[in-house]
C-alpha cells in the first residue's frame, strides 16, 4: 500500500504517533491520528484530530478539541492525562486511584484542574475518598506518568513519506487473496479503481497526515491530493476467472417449440443440476421466478416463470416428469431448499440426489460451504455476486423478479453450471475420504427426511407464549432494579464493558479480574458463574 512504517527501537507506537503529529503540526499540516484509543485525546489540538475508525456498526468519528472537552469533562486536551491518571485505564495497565471512576475523575478535574492540584488540596476532600487519595498519592503520580504520551522520541517527520501514492495493486491483491480477505479486496478495488465515489473511504494506517487544500472546505479530502491528477486505474488482478473470462452458452428457453425441444433433451439425461430462483430465502413463502438447468460444463438453460401463480403452476406441470423421474439424478447446492420450494407447487422431487453442500460438509466439515466460496476454492472461479445483481440487504434490495431477464439467465445458469462442475469435482473426493457411503446412505436420505419435517412444522400454543413472554418481561424488570440497587447506579447491563466496570472497578469484587484480548474485563459466562458461586 506504500504506507510508511516507522519502527525506531525502544519506543512505543503511541509515542511515535505523538511525536510525528506534533512535528507535522508545526510544519503547518492538519493531522488525523487514525485510532480508536481514547488516550490520544491528550494530543488533540486545533490542527490535530483523532479519526476513530468505524466499529461495531458505528460510523467513523472525528474528535477535535470540543469533542475531547465533552468526552472527558476537561478544558484543555492535555488534562486527559490527569483524567487517565486518576481513573486509571485497565487496557493499558494504568492503576489510577482506587475507587475513582469516570464521574469522580471529571469532578476532580473541574475542581482542581490537574492531578497535582488534587494532591495539593486533599484537605478539601472527605471521608474514605480522602484517605484513599492520600494513601495512593504515589500511585496517582505514577499513573499520570504512564498515561502521558511522549512527543519527543527519536523520529523525524518527512512530509513526502506521507503523500498517498498509488498502491502496488497487484502485490496488495495477492496478499489479500492469500489471507482470504475477500471483503477488503473488494473495497480496495472499489476505492482505488476511481470508478466509485470515494465518500466513505477508509484508509487504514497508523497515521495519515494530509495538507487540506484551501478549496476543500467541506472536510472531504481527495485521496490523491487536490491537484487534479487523475487516479491511475486499478484493475482487478485476481487470478480467478469470472463469467467474463470463460466462454459459456447460457440460454433462456422461450415457450413453445424451444421449450418442447428443451424438455425432450432434458428427459434424455441421466444426471442434471438444477437451481431455483425465487423471491425469498424462506422456502415456505418463496415464489418461483425461474429454474436453471445444467448437465454439461459451461452450458445451461433458464426457464423464466410468470408472476401469476396460475400460469406458473401450468408451466411447472411441464417440468413435473423431470422432477418426479426416478431415473434422473438431481444435482443441487442445498437441495433441501429447492425441494421445499417445489413442494409448495405440489411437486415431489424424486430420484437420486447429489447435494454439493452436503458433499463438502463431509469433505471439509470445518470450512464454509456456500457456493461462492466452494467455486473460488475448487474451481478458481468467482461467480456473479448476488449483491451486484439485487443490491445489499435492506429495503432497497431488489427482488429477483425485478432483475432484467438476461441478467437472471446469466446469474441463474451460472449457479447451475458451477454446481454441476462442483459435483464432478466432489465425487472422487468423497470416495477418496471413504465417505461416499456415509454420503449416499445417511446424509442424502436424511435430506429428504429433514425437508419433510420442516415442511410439517410443529403446532405452537401462541397464547401460552404470549403470557410467558409477559412473565419474563416482569422478571427481567425486577432483576434489573435489583442489579441497579446493588450497583448503586443505572447502567446498561447488556454492555460487557459497563458491566465489567461496575463489577470490577466500582464494586471491586475480585482483586485481579480476568481481561479479554481487547483489555476489557471479561464478563464471560464462566467468569460470572464462578463469581456467583464464590460471592454466595
Amino acid at each position, binding site marked *: 500500500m506504500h504506507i510508511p512504517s516507522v519502527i525506531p527501537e525502544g519506543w512505543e507506537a503511541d509515542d511515535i504517533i505523538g511525536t510525528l503529529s506534533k512535528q507535522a503540526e508545526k510544519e503547518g499540516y492538519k493531522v488525523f491520528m487514525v485510532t480508536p484509543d481514547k488516550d490520544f485525546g491528550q494530543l488533540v489540538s486545533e490542527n490535530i484530530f483523532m479519526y476513530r475508525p468505524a466499529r461495531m456498526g458505528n460510523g467513523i468519528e472525528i474528535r477535535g478539541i470540543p469533542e475531547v472537552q465533552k468526552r472527558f469533562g476537561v478544558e484543555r486536551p492535555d488534562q486527559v492525562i490527569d483524567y487517565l491518571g486518576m481513573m486509571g485505564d485497565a487496557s493499558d495497565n494504568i492503576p489510577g486511584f482506587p475507587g475513582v471512576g469516570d464521574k469522580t475523575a471529571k469532578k476532580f478535574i473541574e475542581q482542581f484542574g490537574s492531578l497535582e492540584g488534587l494532591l495539593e488540596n486533599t484537605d478539601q476532600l472527605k471521608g474514605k475518598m480522602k484517605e484513599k487519595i492520600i494513601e495512593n498519592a504515589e500511585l496517582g503520580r505514577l499513573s499520570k506518568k504512564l498515561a502521558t504520551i511522549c512527543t519527543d522520541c527519536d523520529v523525524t517527520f518527512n512530509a513526502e513519506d506521507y503523500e498517498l501514492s498509488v498502491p502496488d495493486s497487484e502485490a496488495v491483491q495477492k496478499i489479500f487473496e492469500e489471507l482470504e480477505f475477500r471483503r477488503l479486496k473488494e473495497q480496495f478495488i472499489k476505492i482505488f479503481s476511481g470508478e466509485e465515489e470515494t465518500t466513505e473511504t477508509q484508509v487504514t494506517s497508523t497515521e495519515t497526515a494530509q495538507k487540506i487544500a484551501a478549496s476543500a472546505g467541506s472536510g472531504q479530502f481527495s485521496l490523491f491530493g487536490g491537484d487534479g491528477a487523475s487516479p491511475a486505474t486499478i484493475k482487478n488482478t485476481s487470478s480467478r476467472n469470472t463469467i467474463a473470462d470463460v466462454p459459456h452458452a447460457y440460454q433462456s428457453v422461450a415457450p413453445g417449440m424451444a421449450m418442447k425441444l428443451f424438455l425432450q433433451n432434458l428427459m434424455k439425461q441421466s444426471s442434471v443440476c438444477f437451481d431455483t430462483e425465487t423471491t425469498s430465502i424462506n422456502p415456505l413463502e418463496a415464489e418461483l421466478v425461474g429454474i436453471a438447468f445444467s448437465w454439461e460444463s459451461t452450458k445451461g438453460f433458464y426457464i423464466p416463470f410468470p408472476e401469476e401463480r396460475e400460469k406458473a403452476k401450468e408451466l411447472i406441470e411441464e417440468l413435473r416428469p423431470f422432477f418426479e423421474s426416478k431415473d434422473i439424478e438431481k444435482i443441487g447446492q442445498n437441495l433441501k431448499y429447492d425441494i421445499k420450494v417445489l413442494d409448495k407447487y405440489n411437486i415431489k422431487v424424486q430420484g437420486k440426489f447429489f447435494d454439493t453442500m452436503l458433499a463438502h460438509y463431509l469433505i471439509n466439515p470445518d470450512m464454509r460451504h456456500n457456493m461462492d466460496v466452494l467455486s473460488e476454492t475448487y474451481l478458481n472461479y468467482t461467480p456473479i455476486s448476488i449483491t451486484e445483481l439485487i443490491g445489499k440487504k435492506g429495503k432497497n434490495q431488489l427482488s429477483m423478479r425485478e432483475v432484467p431477464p438476461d441478467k437472471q439467465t446469466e446469474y441463474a445458469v451460472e449457479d447451475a453450471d458451477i454446481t454441476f462442475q462442483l459435483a464432478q469435482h466432489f465425487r472422487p473426493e468423497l470416495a477418496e475420504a*471413504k465417505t461416499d457411503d456415509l454420503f449416499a446412505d445417511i446424509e442424502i436420505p436424511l435430506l429428504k427426511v429433514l425437508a419433510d419435517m420442516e415442511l410439517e412444522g410443529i403446532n405452537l400454543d401462541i397464547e401460552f407464549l404470549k403470557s410467558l413472554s409477559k412473565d419474563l418481561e416482569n422478571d427481567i424488570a425486577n432483576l434489573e432494579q435489583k442489579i441497579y440497587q446493588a450497583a448503586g447506579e443505572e447502567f446498561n447491563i447488556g454492555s460487557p464493558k459497563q458491566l465489567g466496570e461496575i463489577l470490577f472497578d466500582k464494586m471491586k469484587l475480585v482483586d485481579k479480574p480476568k481481561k479479554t484480548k481487547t483489555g476489557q474485563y471479561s464478563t464471560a459466562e464462566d467468569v460470572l458463574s464462578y463469581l456467583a458461586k464464590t460471592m454466595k
Partner: protein
Amino acid sequence: MQTVAATGRLSSNNPNLQNIPIRTERGRQVRKAFVPRNDDYTLLAADYSQIELRIIAALSEENTMIEAFKNGEDIHASTASKVFNVPIEEVTREQRSNAKTVNFGIIYGVSAFGLSNQTDLSRSEAKELIDTYYKTYPKLRNYISEQVDFARENGYVQTVLGRRRYLKDINGSNAVVRGAAERNAVNAPIQGSAADIIKIAMINIHKKLTEGGYTSKMLLQVHDELVFDIYKPELEELKGIIKSEMENAYKLAVPLDVELGMGENWLVAH
C-alpha cells in the same frame, strides 16, 4: 441445518431449538408451547439415555463401564462407587453428582480447573478425582491417548460411520490451540458417532412411518431426542417401533437405551 456443526450433529435456526433453556424451571416452560396438532394427537419424545457415555465406553472397550451399562446400573452411581471406593448402595448424592460431572467432563476433556469450577471440589481434590477416575477406567485413558495419536498421525479423527473431522492444529506449536485440537480428537468421534446413530434412526423411522401409511409424523430432532406428533390410535404400535428403531440403529458393544415420554406438550412428554 445439516451442514453447520462440524461434528456431524444437526443444528437448527429460526428458531434455534438447541438454545431452548433446560437448566431452569422457567426456561423449561418454553417447551410447553410446543403442542400436538389437535386433540386426536399426543406428543411423544424419545430420548437416548447417556448416548455419549455409552459410545465412549464401547469405543474404548472399557469393560468395567460396559458391564455397568449391560447390567442396567445407574452409571454415575457405579462410577462414584468405584472412584470413592464405597459400595454402590452407600454412594451419597454428592459423590454421585461429582462422578456425573467427571463422566460428562471426560468427553469434553475437562481439566482439574474446569472440574473444580463445576463442583464444590477444590482444584487439588478435582485433580485427585480425575486421576482416580483414570485408574478406575484405564482403557478409557488409553483410548483418549490413542485418539490423539491417531489424529497426530493422520490429521483427522473419525466416527463409527467414517465421518471425518480434520484437526489441522493437532501438531501446532501453540499449546492452547493444540490443546483444543486434542480435546476435539476425543470429543469429535463421540459427538459425531452420536449424530451418525440418531441420523440412522431418523431415516429408518421416517421410512417405517411412510411405508406403513401412518398419519403420525416425526417433527423435531434436538440434542439426543426425537419428537413425534402421534395420532393416538397409533400410539402403542409406534412406541414399539420408535424405541426399537432407535435402540437398534447401530450395534455397539454397549446396549443403547431410549426413554419414551408422552404428553399434551413437549415439557410433559420430555
